[in-house]
């Protein structure tokens, strides 16, 4: 079996069987959160791990996805499912507009520009009270899929529904990402991460490839934001905040920024931690900062690829 199929199969089994060990129904909710975060982090893997670019404003796209679900059904009369697509479209266009001039330039410019973009989006969500109701947050309409399933004879609790629904979306997202990785575009992306100059000399349109990666990863973040809003039925501008962007990057870095399996592992660890350790909230920034620095110095590939390497016996 190829490593790609192995990753997907392991993920599917994990999602299907984990509920057996859940001590309470609360864990369905934690699981769904993990999947939502893992989806966004998979986008970061495409951007950072494969295209070698870093974004410090990806939460901005999550904010767009989330608020699209809150606002489009009320103001445009769209079904929430279509609002998810609208949010993804807006995120993609914005990523394209911001990324196009920047990705012709060197590494850290995207970090700075995306940081500014993220802050701007969260500023708008906080300040435009007439539309977004400001920092207090806003209600999000019901997706309605659970009621449809119930009519079809499949009666799931709210927690169960969102656990399996987000799990399926995550498997789809991982499948698409892994296919992208093995496609011509994906190989080109990784080649350009290896050596940009070499990639240029063999005729790759480096700027266009990076732009594609940025747009795709923005769509992942946007859909993750939409799913978060829909399952909570409520959203605040925090979803677009700087700390959320930092969380995404840290999750990717911890698991392994070049690996989809690592992304899911990183998301799982850093989503579980605050649930298990209630004191964590106070130390969150300290821990996230420490994780980023330590992993980058000692385990640059991240935890999962380093372990896999040990298992396969191809140690350094």
């Amino acid at each position: 079996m190829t490593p790609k199929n192995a990753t997907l199969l392991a993920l599917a089994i994990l999602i299907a069987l984990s509920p057996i060990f859940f001590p309470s129904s609360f864990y369905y909710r934690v699981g769904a959160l993990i999947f939502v975060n893992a989806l966004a982090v998979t986008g970061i893997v495409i951007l950072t791990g494969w295209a070698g670019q870093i974004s410090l404003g990806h939460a901005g796209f999550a904010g767009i996805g989330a608020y699209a679900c809150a606002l489009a059904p009320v103001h445009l009369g769209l079904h929430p499912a279509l609002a998810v697509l609208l949010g993804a479209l807006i995120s993609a266009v914005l990523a394209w507009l911001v990324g196009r001039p920047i990705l012709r330039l060197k590494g850290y410019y995207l970090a700075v520009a995306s940081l500014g973009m993220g802050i701007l989006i969260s500023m708008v969500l906080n300040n435009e009270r007439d539309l977004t109701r400001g920092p207090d947050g806003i209600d999000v309409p019901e997706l309605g899929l659970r009621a449809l399933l119930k009519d079809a004879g499949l009666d799931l609790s709210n927690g169960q529904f969102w656990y399996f629904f987000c799990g399926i979306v995550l498997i789809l997202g991982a499948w698409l990402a892994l296919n992208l990785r093995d496609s011509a575009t994906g190989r080109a992306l990784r080649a350009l991460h290896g050596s940009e100059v070499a990639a240029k000399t063999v005729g790759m349109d480096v700027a266009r490839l990076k732009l594609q990666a940025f747009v795709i990863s923005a769509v992942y973040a946007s859909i993750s934001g939409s799913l978060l809003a829909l399952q909570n039925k409520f959203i605040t501008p925090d979803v677009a905040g700087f700390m959320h962007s930092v969380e995404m990057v840290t999750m990717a870095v911890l698991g392994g920024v070049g690996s989809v399996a690592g992304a899911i592992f990183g998301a799982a660890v850093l989503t579980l931690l605050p649930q298990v350790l209630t004191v964590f909230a106070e130390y969150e920034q300290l821990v996230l900062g420490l994780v980023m620095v330590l992993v980058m110095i000692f385990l640059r590939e991240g935890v999962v690829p380093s372990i896999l390497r040990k298992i396969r016996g191809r140690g350094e």
Partner: protein
Amino acid sequence: MSELLQFLLSGVTVGAVYALVALGFTIIYNASDVVNFAQGEFVMLGGMITVAAYAAGAPLPLAALVAIVVTAALGVAMNKLTIEPARGAPVVSLVIITIGASIFIRGAAQLIFGKQIHTYPAFSGDDPIRILGATILPQSLWVIAGSVAVFIGLWLFFTRTLLGRAVLATSNNRLAAQLVGINTTFVMTLSFALSAGIGALAGVLVTPITMTSYDVGLAFALKGFAAAMLGGMGNPKGALVGGFLLGLLEGLTAGYISSQYKDAAAFIVILAVLFFLPQGLFGRKSTDRV
């Protein structure tokens, strides 16, 4: 007219702070090609440590001095503990490391100093000075004088002293500098100390006007970076001019458009520079060596 002058004066004041942050960026960038996202945290530490030392009973000048020295030492520690072990890492890894360090400093400051907003008295009182119908706080003059003094000091250091030239030589070509006997490791240490100290000075000077809390660093980092880019990355003169220009732009945005969106000015500047003049106002065209 006096309204415009008022906006310009407040713009110049914040601009002086951004110029200091941008100078700090420039020093580290020149010595090591590292873009230090923790630069804004040095500004926060400068203000916060002064607050703590002043509250502990130290006179204000001593408290300010303690803040600058401690922050410079923390800058050196950051270099030794995070940048040096990762020497030769790709740009993305270095960005992640400095972001990680900045989040860590923020988290530590939140635990040590709490989440409250702090301030201390202005150095020369709070009586505004009238100029042509507009007013300026004496503290603003301190800020402006501070950034001009730092710029002149740096200029003398880099052009007139052997050590300063060693830093410039290292930034031009690290290997060649090592070959002629320059201790490049020491140059890095010195750059971080200088850069952190200058950031702390900015924090010390501006806190009586803007107040401070554990999370102000990020905005300073973004704006200092925008200023450095506007002037041309790596150019000290550009950092100074870029800082003041960004401050003026922000002052005018706050005055004529919306004070809620004054922070957007920095972001618009970053995008505009990237679109229209990626080398900045004073930058040189750069090419990659393979």
